[in-house]
C-alpha cells in the first residue's frame, strides 16, 4: 500500500512554509520561503500578496520533491495563516489592490480614534468580542475603502474581493479568476471585527458601523470541511481545513478540552485557552475568539492574550540595530552578562496589545547607565517576552479565578533555552514544549487529516502529544517580585509617553 501524508501550508508573517506530516504526526519535509516586509512610512507594514502566492507556488512542489512523494499521496491539505492581515483584489484579474496591510500596521490609529466617537461603538465589543484596535482587519479594510480612489464603488459593484491570507490562497489554489472559491473560516472571520461571535455570521450592525459592503466578504465556513481540490500549483489535492495560525497551534497542541492552554512564540506571541462551547468575556483585557469549528459541530471558543512584539524585537536587534547576525544569536549575546543590569525594554512598536490595549503606546528602553552593554540589552529583549507572557497569564488567571499549573509552548522562540527558562522563572510554573515545534503547521495538518478521516478522532491526536522539553522554575520569589515590579513601572512609562492616548479597554 502506498504511504499517504498530510500537507500543511503555514502562511506566516515573515515566511510561508509547506510541511508534510506522516500518520504518526512526524515531520517528513519542510520547504520555506521568506517574503519582504515593506515599511513605506513609520508604523506602516505591508506585504505583497502576489509574492506570497509565488512562494506557495514554489514551496508546495518543493516539499513533495524533498519527501520524494507524488501529489496523489497527499491525503489532505490544511491551510493556516497570519491572521488579520487584509488584502483586497480584483475578482476579474486576480490582481491585488495595492499591498496587503498587515496586522502589525498601525496606520489606522487616527481612524480608530474617530470610530471610538461613533454611535454604536458600545455594541462593537459585545458583538465581535474584540476591542477596537488597529490590530484587526475591519479598520484596515475601511482604511483601504476610504483611501484608495474608486475602491468603494468597485466593492459595491462586486468587482473586488476582501480576504485574510487564507481566503487569498484558497481563492488562488481553487482556480483564481476561473472559479476560485471565496471563503474564509470562522477563526479568521473572528479576527475581522465583522463577525458576530454568537451566530458566526457577518453582522449587519458591524458592517454598517465600519461601512463595509458585504459583497466583498468571503463566505464563512467551519475550520474543518472539504473545501474543494486544488487546480493550480499542484492540482488535485483536497483542501480540507483552514484556520488562523494561533488557533492552529491550539489545535496542534491538542488543546481540545475546556481549560487547555498554549502560548505560541513567533513574530508576536499568543496565549490561547480553550473555553469549550461557552463564549467567555474577559474582564481583564483578553480577547474572545473562535478556537475552531469542526464541520457540522458547534464552534469552540477561546480566550486570547495577544502580544504584538516578541520575536520581532529579536528581528529588530538583528535588522535595525545590527547587534546580532541571526535571531538565535540573541541568546549568545544575552549570556555574555548575568542579569539585565537594571535595563528594561518595553517593545510597544504597534502600541500595546493584551492586556493593555493602548494603541498610542510606543516602545522604550529604561534604566540606561554607562554600565549597560549590548549583552544587557539582549537580555532585556528576551525578558520582555517573558514579562509580557506573565501579564497575559495573570489576566487569564484573574478571569478564571484559578491559576494555571503549567504552560504549553511552541513556535520558533522555544529554541531559545535562556528565554524558556526565564519564562518558567517569571511564571513560577513549568514550561513544556511538545515534540513538534512547528505546532501551527501540525494543527492545520491535524484539522485537514481529521476532515478526510486520515486520523479518526481527537482522542487519537491527543495520544500523539509528547513532551520534548520541560523547564522548571528556579527563581527566588523575592527577586521575581522585584523584577516584575520594575517591569510594571517600565510599562507605566509607555502609558505616560502616550499621554494623548487613552485605553480602549
Amino acid at each position: 500500500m502506498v504511504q499517504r501524508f498530510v500537507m500543511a501550508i503555514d502562511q506566516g508573517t515573515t515566511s510561508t512554509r509547506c510541511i508534510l506530516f506522516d500518520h504518526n504526526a512526524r515531520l517528513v519535509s519542510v520547504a520555506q520561503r521568506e517574503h519582504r516586509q515593506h515599511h513605506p512610512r513609520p508604523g506602516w507594514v505591508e506585504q505583497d500578496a502576489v509574492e506570497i502566492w509565488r512562494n506557495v507556488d514554489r514551496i508546495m512542489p518543493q516539499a513533495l520533491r524533498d519527501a520524494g512523494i507524488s501529489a496523489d499521496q497527499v491525503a489532505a491539505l490544511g491551510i493556516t495563516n497570519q491572521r488579520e492581515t487584509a488584502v483586497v483584489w480584483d475578482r476579474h484579474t486576480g490582481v491585488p489592490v495595492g499591498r496587503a496591510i498587515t496586522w502589525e500596521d498601525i496606520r489606522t490609529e487616527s481612524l480608530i480614534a474617530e470610530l471610538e466617537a461613533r454611535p454604536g461603538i458600545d455594541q462593537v465589543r459585545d458583538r465581535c468580542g474584540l476591542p477596537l484596535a488597529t490590530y484587526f482587519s475591519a479598520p484596515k479594510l475601511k482604511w483601504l475603502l476610504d483611501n484608495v480612489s474608486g475602491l468603494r464603488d468597485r466593492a459595491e459593484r462586486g468587482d473586488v474581493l476582501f480576504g485574510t491570507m487564507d481566503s487569498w490562497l484558497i481563492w488562488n489554489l481553487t482556480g483564481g479568476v476561473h472559479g476560485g472559491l471565496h471563503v474564509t473560516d470562522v477563526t479568521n472571520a473572528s479576527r475581522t471585527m465583522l463577525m458576530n461571535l454568537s451566530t458566526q455570521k457577518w453582522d449587519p450592525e458591524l458592517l454598517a458601523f465600519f461601512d463595509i459592503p458585504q459583497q466583498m466578504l468571503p463566505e464563512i465556513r467551519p475550520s474543518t470541511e472539504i473545501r474543494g481540490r486544488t487546480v493550480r500549483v499542484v492540482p488535485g489535492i483536497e483542501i480540507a481545513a483552514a484556520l488562523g495560525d494561533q488557533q492552529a497551534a491550539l489545535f496542534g497542541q491538542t488543546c481540545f478540552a475546556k481549560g487547555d492552554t498554549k502560548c505560541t512564540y513567533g513574530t508576536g506571541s499568543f496565549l490561547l485557552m480553550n473555553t469549550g462551547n461557552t463564549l467567555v468575556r474577559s474582564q481583564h483585557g483578553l480577547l474572545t475568539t473562535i478556537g475552531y469549528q469542526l464541520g457540522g459541530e458547534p464552534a469552540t471558543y477561546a480566550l486570547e492574550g495577544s502580544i504584538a512584539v516578541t520575536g520581532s524585537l529579536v528581528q529588530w536587534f538583528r535588522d535595525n540595530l545590527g547587534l546580532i547576525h541571526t535571531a538565535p544569536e540573541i541568546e549568545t549575546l544575552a549570556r555574555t552578562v548575568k542579569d539585565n543590569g537594571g535595563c528594561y525594554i518595553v517593545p510597544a512598536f504597534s502600541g500595546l496589545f493584551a492586556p493593555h490595549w493602548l494603541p498610542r503606546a510606543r516602545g522604550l528602553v529604561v534604566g540606561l547607565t554607562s554600565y549597560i552593554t549590548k549583552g544587557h540589552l539582549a537580555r532585556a529583549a528576551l525578558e520582555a517576552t517573558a514579562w509580557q507572557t506573565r501579564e497575559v497569564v495573570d489576566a487569564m488567571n484573574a478571569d478564571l479565578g484559578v491559576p494555571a499549573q503549567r504552560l504549553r509552548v511552541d513556535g520558533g522562540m522555544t529554541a531559545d533555552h535562556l528565554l524558556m527558562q526565564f519564562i518558567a522563572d517569571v511564571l513560577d510554573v513549568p514550561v513544556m514544549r511538545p515534540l513538534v515545534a512547528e505546532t501551527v503547521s501540525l494543527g492545520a495538518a491535524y484539522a485537514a487529516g481529521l476532515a478526510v478521516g486520515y486520523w479518526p478522532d481527537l482522542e487519537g491526536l491527543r495520544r500523539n502529544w509528547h513532551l520534548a522539553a520541560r523547564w522548571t522554575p528556579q527563581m527566588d520569589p523575592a527577586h521575581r517580585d522585584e523584577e516584575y515590579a520594575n517591569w510594571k513601572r517600565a510599562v507605566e512609562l509607555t502609558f505616560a509617553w502616550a499621554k494623548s492616548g487613552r485605553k480602549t479597554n
Partner: protein
Amino acid sequence: MPGPIQSIERAAAMLRLLARGSGHHGLTEISDSLGLPRGTAHGILRTLQRVEFVEQDRATGRYRLGAALLHLGTSYLDANELRSRSINWADTLAARSGQAVRIGMHLDGAVLVVHHVFRPDDTMQTLGIGAMLPLHATALGKVLAAYDPDLSAAIRSRELTSLTRRTIVRPAALERVLAEVRSAGWAGEAEEYMPGEASIAAPIRIPGGLVVGAMGISGAVDRICDTAGRPRPALVSQVLQAAEAVTRALAAES
C-alpha cells in the same frame, strides 16, 4: 597531481584585492581589476559571501572582506543557532527512534550539549542543555573527535578516564575506533559511558564538509543495540538521516 584550481586562485585574488586600499569595491571594479567576465566574478563573490569571507553593503552594493575572515580560528557556528536550525529534525529523530536526542559541539576538550529532546514517553526527564560529556566515551564525542585532527591527536596523547569497565582507555584502541567512525560515517557506544546505556551519533556539516556538531540518540542498551551488542541498523540509519537533514538545512540558507 592535478593542477591548480582556477576558481580558488581567483577567489584568493579577490580577497587580496579587497584586503588592500579602500577595501570597498563594486562588482564591475572587481571584475575589471582581475580581468574576469562579470558573471564569473559575480559567481565567485556570491560563494565567498555565502561562506562569509566577503560581505556586501546593503546600501551601496559594494563588497568588502567579511567579519568571519578576521575570526577564522574561532567558532564557525553559534551553538544557539545550531539548536534553532536543527530543532525540527531533532524532534523528528526522537519521534522516529523513540529515544532521547542530543546535539553536541566541541568545547574545551569535551562535548557541550547544545540541544536535548526528551525520550518521547512522557516520563520525568531533566533537560540536559549545557551539560558536558566526555569525548572518548560517548558517540557524540567520538564523532566530534574523529573529524577534528587536533582533537584526535589530543585524545591519543592524554590519559583517558575509565567511566565503566567498557570505556576505551587505550589510546591505540581509541585511534582505531576513530578511524572506523570516519570510514563508517557514524559512531556508536555501548555501556562505555554509563552501565546499561548506549548511544549512536552522526556528524553535522556545513557546506564544504566541515563538521560543526554531532547529533545522536541515547537510551537503554537493549533498545539501542541488537542481541549481539551492535547498534541496530535501523536506528543508525535514522540518526544518519537526521544529521543529513540538519546538514541540508544548514546549507539551504545562511
